[in-house]
């Protein structure tokens, strides 16, 4: 078992209900558990499909069993399926050393759609996030997923991107094996492509 670069390794996975955030954290949790680490995945949902913010926390350690909620401002990485949600959670879990990986595709909150609130310009959002983390990966995950045939694959694209960083003690093959254990084989081809696309996106940055 490879030593953890960060112990605990605390990864926040966030987005908007329906984007596949719970699935992404489950895949990651399963891959890490199978690799022998102590894993706790805390999921926050309830109104998850009703347009609200959702968050999961994947907590990994080599030692003690961790609780389902990580301490504030201690995330190792924040992975977000929606860029505004990345900034929202940086406010709670961020610190100067945090790594942020986010999809660049906005999903506007209903107050924004109704014209009652503003959604920041992409450049402003990006620059603000950059100023609050050690490294920002601003990735076209939805665009990549749409090219693969389904916007819902953005979650797996981001998992692929995460695998390209030097944070996890496991590789993309192990994440793929966890996906394969959860999906029937005929659904795996687009998932494999999405993982590969995510890896490639980070390497292009």
């Amino acid at each position, binding site marked *: 078992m490879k030593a953890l670069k960060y112990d605990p390794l605390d990864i926040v996975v966030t987005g*908007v*209900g329906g984007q596949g955030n719970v699935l992404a954290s*489950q895949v990651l*949790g399963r891959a890490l*558990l199978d690799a022998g680490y*102590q*894993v*706790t*995945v*805390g*999921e*926050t*949902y*309830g*109104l998850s*499909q*009703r*347009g*609200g*913010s959702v968050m999961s926390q994947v907590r990994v350690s080599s030692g*003690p*069993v*961790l*609780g*389902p*909620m*990580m*301490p*504030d*401002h*201690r995330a190792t990485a924040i992975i977000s399926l929606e860029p*505004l*949600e990345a*900034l*929202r959670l*940086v*406010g709670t879990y*961020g*610190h*100067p050393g945090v790594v942020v990986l986010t999809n660049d595709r906005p*999903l*506007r*909150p*209903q*107050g*924004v*759609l*109704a*014209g*009652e*609130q*503003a*959604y920041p310009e992409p450049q*402003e*959002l990006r620059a*603000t996030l950059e*100023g*609050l983390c050690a490294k920002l990966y601003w990735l076209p995950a*939805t665009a990549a997923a749409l090219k693969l045939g389904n*916007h819902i694959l953005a979650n797996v694209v981001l998992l692929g991107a995460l695998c390209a960083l030097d944070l996890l003690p496991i590789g993309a093959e192990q994440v793929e094996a966890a996906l394969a254990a959860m999906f029937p084989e005929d659904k795996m081809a687009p998932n494999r492509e999405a993982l590969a696309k995510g890896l490639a996106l980070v390497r292009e940055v």
Partner: protein
Amino acid sequence: MADVSKLIPGQKVLLQGNEAIARGALEAGVALAAAYPGNPSSEILQTLADSAHSAGIYVEWSTNEKVALESAAAASYAGLRGMASMKQNGVNVAQDFICNLTISGTQGGIVLVTCDDPSGVSSTNEEDARFIARVACLPLLEPATPAECLSMMKLAFELSEQIGNLVVLRGLARLSHTRAGVVPGPLPESKRRPRWDPSQRWFTIPVVPRHQAMLDKLAKAGEIMGAAGVNYYDGPQRPELLVVASGSSRLYADEARRMLEAGERVGILHLGATWPLDQELILEHLARADKILFAEEVDPHLEGGVKSIYAQHVRELGIKDFFGQDTGHKPPVGELSPSRVAAALADILGLPWQEVDPAYQEKAQVAQALVAPRQVGFCPGCPHRASYWSMKQVLAADGREGIVSGDIGCYTLGVLPTGYQRVNAVHCMGSGPGIASGLGKLRDQGFGQPVISVVGDSTFFHAALPALVNARWNNSDYVLVVLDNSATAMTGFQPHPGTGATAMGQAGTVVDVEQVCAGLGLPYAVVDPYDLEATQEALYDALQIGGGLRVLIFRRLCALVQNKQGGHPWSISVDPELCRGEDCGCHRFCTRVFRCPGLVFDEATGKATVDEVVCVGCGVCAQICPAGAIKARPKEATA
């Protein structure tokens, strides 16, 4: 959910807390499990249902939590093991039965699982259901991890059988929806044959001696739980501060202690059994430390209990300082977190505690000004949006300040903007028609406002029926709108009597809303809420009739279910030539007023457009556009 009966004993797997509770029940040999869906508890029964055929057990979605627990008691009286799972609100529904069952006693092991929801993430309240253990004198177990969920379920069944009473296991939303490594044990090899010995009778009289017997059972439960190893101490011999904790708070306290590097100063008394409190154990540990902090969610259950024990032994223990809810070291509302416990520890121990560099924190806080809140609302294509749109239009046209009495389900969101804030009151399952019934009897005293009660199809059967019978009997004047989306959508699309499907996937008997209305002698009509004109006409007419209870059934399948069953028929687009943009309906009528997230106002062009990732193609918005700019074309034609 997964079939957890197929897990391989001894092989560690990632299980959700709720799945681990289900697996624990199977390992304990549960024969009957029943529940009414309610987050955060829903996955327990769903997992058992998905495991029922291979495990050879009976699993049922019941009409409500009280019926679920009564079914579980039936298994107990037949000598089998039974369980009922529910959210905290469900304990209230089942309470009358619980408070009598505890006096009559039980035979086969029976467990009530309550999954509380501190912070009310998916609830109308954040009630601490541990009260039931005190009220009904029941043993209470509180696991902290999925692994403990499994082991404590097994203990709960054993304990129940040993004392002859119901045992309560309390989960929390965080734990229900936490996944962690669990090592399953073996499943039982043999099954019991159900038989109710006719010489055995279960009732509550004479009350006083049976009340005493109930107390004796509780005392015996305390001894058994004390010996079971679910309470333990972790820390130095003489800690400066003792944390008394239960549930997830045990883990938060442990993490806070690590973060503050206070392992030499802080000890944690982990309580897995929290009613009755183990007096001997608590006295032993109170003697170790002079400062005591409580870490628990939501009510000060341990805090009150431990202080009460201390009060009886203050002479031998001497002066102690207690920290908790009474001193502001534990919040009286909302959930706890490792950071909150760390702040309490730091304050009590006089340690410096800084979550993050203040300059960073300030910068991050300033940046939050860019982050618009993300309020929950109806899904794209949700029939409830169309239903509330029609209620809004009709009540405006009616002009008599109509009131909408709400209820529990997805359509509770009618209190928020995507339901046009059309709902005037929401409390608990079935309370909507009850309140409407009362309003409808104030006519003689001059109450002239029309009244609509909205209930979902699942809520209709859970708790609305008595209120409807009441209204029919007493000739109360209101319109009941049944928002029938053919699913218990909020909690994960479970079947209910109106769908006729059962938890185990077999065909039950459809109990349809129309037949119930006909049986009660209520006039009723069925409309499709997607058809705005027909719906509004029917509702307007129903409001004008007056005189008694009448029913409109707004029937349209939940949009999320429809998405899985082939999707919606329309491809939606906006004709920019026709779109009136800023000037429409005072200002951006479709995006500002109608508020479907599938419609976006394009600031660049000054026109509405459709977000193809979000829009499902229900076609309702095409009916509300005053310029006819929103076009619904059959998907095939555009593909």
